[in-house]
């Protein structure tokens, strides 16, 4: 009885689906199935922005002489307990483009007007508008920037397979990776991306990321890739809570440690205590 009822239901469902599909459907079949979950491809799990090169100086970041000097000075300063080069250690969000390293899982949700990159790291949401809008004249800076995208059907199959993205209005402080390779302080970086699935393996997604910034002598392009390992559904998403792991605090331009009893401690010998002039 249950089997006959299921058959009847399926038949009724097919008719209704066809009718309603004609009237109202969001035609998801025009778009690639990129839901995820994605995580940075195995083998590229170093912390460097360009996974094809060694970290730090090995990145050969095309910094201008001015910003190379700034970078090297900040590394020296950090080594003696000064302000850290990597703002994420102070729970400043990684931002774009760094968050696209996807060191924690990422989901890609596609709608007709926007594609959402939902990244566990720093609970980051990127909203990439694909509704044909232009960049506004005044962009409110944000860590993820303002992103406008355009779908492409590069094979003429009638289905989109590539998403081109441009992002502007990225707020600082931010760096390319944990080593602290800096962006220009003018906040005028532009990041363009080409996102597409691997032609041989739909469970691998590529993001060709090009950064144009006044701290660079030329645009800097890296390829980040992600795998979902054949897994279409993740049952157990986590949360990223920076606040639960903060043992260092910033007061002015100085970094201090917090002792197990929550008191301020110096990070280097001879570091002065913070100025308490506002206390009686």
């Amino acid at each position, binding site marked *: 009885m249950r089997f006959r009822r299921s058959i009847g239901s399926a038949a009724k469902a097919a008719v209704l689906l066809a009718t309603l599909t004609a009237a109202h459907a969001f035609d998801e079949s025009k778009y690639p199935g990129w839901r995820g979950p994605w995580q940075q491809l195995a083998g590229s799990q170093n912390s460097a922005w360009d996974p094809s090169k060694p970290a730090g100086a090995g990145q050969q970041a095309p910094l201008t002489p001015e910003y190379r000097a700034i970078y090297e000075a900040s590394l020296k300063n950090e080594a003696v307990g000064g302000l850290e080069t990597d703002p994420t250690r102070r729970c400043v969000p990684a931002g774009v483009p760094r968050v696209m390293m996807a060191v924690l899982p990422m989901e890609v949700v596609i709608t007709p007007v926007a594609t959402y990159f939902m990244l566990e790291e720093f609970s980051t949401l990127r909203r990439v508008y694909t509704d044909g809008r232009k960049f506004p004249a005044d962009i409110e800076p944000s860590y993820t920037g303002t992103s406008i995208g355009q779908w492409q059907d590069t094979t003429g199959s009638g289905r989109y397979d590539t998403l081109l993205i441009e992002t502007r209005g990225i707020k600082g402080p931010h760096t390319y990776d944990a080593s602290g390779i800096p962006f220009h302080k003018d906040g005028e970086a532009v990041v363009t991306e080409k996102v597409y699935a691997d032609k041989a393996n739909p469970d691998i997604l590529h993001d060709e990321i090009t950064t144009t910034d006044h701290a660079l002598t030329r645009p800097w392009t890296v390829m980040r890739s992600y795998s979902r390992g054949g897994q279409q559904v993740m049952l157990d998403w986590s949360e990223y*809570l920076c606040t639960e792991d903060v043992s260092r605090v910033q007061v002015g*331009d100085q970094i201090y440690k917090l002792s197990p009893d929550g008191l301020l401690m110096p990070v280097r010998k001879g570091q002065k205590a913070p100025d308490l002039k506002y206390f009686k």
Partner: protein
Amino acid sequence: MLDRTFVGAMLLTAALCASPGTAQAFDDGTYPDWKGQWMRIGDARWDVSKPLGLGQEAPFTPEYQAKFEASLADQAAGGQGLNLMSRCFPPGMPRMMLGYNQFEFLIFPDVTYIVQEHFGELRRIYTDDRPWPQNVKSTFAGYSIGRWVDADDSGRYHALRIETRDIGGPRTFDHTGLPLHEDGQTIVKEYIHPDRDDPQVLSNEITTIDHALTRPWTVTRSYRLQSNAAWFEHPCESAYNQHLFIGGENYFLSADGRLMPAHKNQPAPDLRYFDQPR
């Protein structure tokens, strides 16, 4: 009311019609049109029908009433009490459904996302008839399973029932510090539906079952659809970066980057670990 067998068969039929490696077509006309930006109606106290603080008349056990009153006293003295948002702990469930900042719904057959700008909080409400999983790590947002409702047999869903479990972390109902139990056994049930009189308003009847309470506590929160919506991120870093917690005390950071008291006569932080001039 739509039969669950029929709905399941419809979804299965849609799945079989799809080609592998591409997204599947689905009839979004079956689901309510909740697209757009939603903002809360009313202020950020938990039950907007009652005064703030003790006026909420939260049905606490004596133990948790005492915790709440201690939190109020600490806040009156310049502290944060049990409110940990200033330390960038997310509000979590159910507090995140106050709607501190704008949010939106993304509706798909198998899942509905509630995407919040506040702290970038995200809820996934699974509507694919999955069973409750075992051994899921608890999170501030919890694990949510939902079911669409077509109460008038119109063939179109108009409301969403949600149950959320596996909610963890120190949470309160609102900024006054109305506490939830530390045992992580909270269950939250919601019924989100359009307001009868105003199609631009959604109502959410939120019932919290928690061992800090003597009975389930139900409040109704409402949200209004915004026109000319613009989205802005609200990471904790930008909202609360002027607070610093040292030795159990909350201090402020001045505009010139120095420590300041958060309340009158607050003692300066203990600097015992620094070499002090004699």
